[in-house]
């Protein structure tokens, strides 16, 4: 039963991940990426890592995907149906993928995974909290510093952007109206 569910979730992950790569519209690629995040969350639940699964949905599906979509909305528009980047020769990509797969598979094979026959506790969030407050207190506080750096860095970059006064929605509409009016005036 578990194997069947795993195969179902894994094929969802692989299918949506492939669609991320082959989607021509960048917004569609982003939406498929959200589907991938969600399926990975289901995989965590299957591993009985409930808290990680919920955190995956909360942070990746809820927050990171919003950042990605906003980043797409903020970028200057490209011509429709034209990919935002030019892909190199396909054999470079293939070599890269095979190399990465080889590294990952050998690494996973080399790690001495610890197996246990004991029943796992249903909820491990309390253990996680205790570990954060004891063994991992310093990394935990460093995480706060990393988040602070990210926030301040984004403010600095965004304020710089704002000073250059990028056109907004209202400006764009005004410009389009102006262009349309001028075109109408030109024809008698």
């Amino acid at each position, binding site marked *: 039963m*578990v194997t069947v569910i795993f195969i179902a979730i894994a094929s969802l992950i692989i299918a949506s991940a492939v669609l991320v790569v082959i989607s021509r519209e960048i917004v569609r690629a982003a939406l498929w990426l959200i589907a991938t995040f969600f399926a990975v969350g289901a995989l965590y639940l299957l591993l009985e890592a409930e808290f990680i699964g919920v955190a995956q949905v909360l*942070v990746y599906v809820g927050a990171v995907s919003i950042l990605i979509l*906003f980043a797409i909305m903020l970028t200057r*528009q490209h011509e429709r149906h034209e990919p935002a980047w030019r892909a190199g020769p396909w054999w470079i990509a293939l070599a890269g993928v095979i190399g990465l797969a080889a590294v990952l598979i050998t690494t996973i094979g080399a790690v001495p995974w610890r197996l246990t026959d004991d029943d796992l506790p249903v909820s491990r969030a309390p253990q996680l*909290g205790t570990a*954060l407050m004891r063994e991992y207190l310093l990394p935990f*506080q460093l995480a706060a510093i990393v988040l602070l750096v990210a926030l301040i860095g984004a403010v600095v970059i965004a304020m710089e952007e704002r000073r250059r006064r*990028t056109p907004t929605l209202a400006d764009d509409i005004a410009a389009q109206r102006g262009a349309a009016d001028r075109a109408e005036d030109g024809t008698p």
Partner: protein
Amino acid sequence: MLDAYAFIGVFFIAALVFPLVPLIAAWRLRPQRSTPIKRDTYECGLEVTGGTRVQFKVQYYMYALAFVIFDVEVVFLYPWAVAYGQLGLFALVAMSVFIIILVFGLVYEWKKGALEWA
């Protein structure tokens, strides 16, 4: 564990099927006659002008980023809150330091005027 999620799985499948059934039914039942006017983008009944893609204000991104930062904070708060009974005063101090560091970022953003909608 799996049994508990089987129930959620049933809801998930129902949530997928529920919108799909009317969509497929509508697609099967409707007449398939397409005209240029029918395929036109709907824009409050007016004639469509300009492209659909416009650049959004950078403020949206600032709010989204602040949201992500404090969303991650919530992920840390949850295991802390659940384990708090076993940890005591030290944990309160440790979490306060964590939150104060992040609040400093919020104050910085606020003072810089990044949250202003001008």
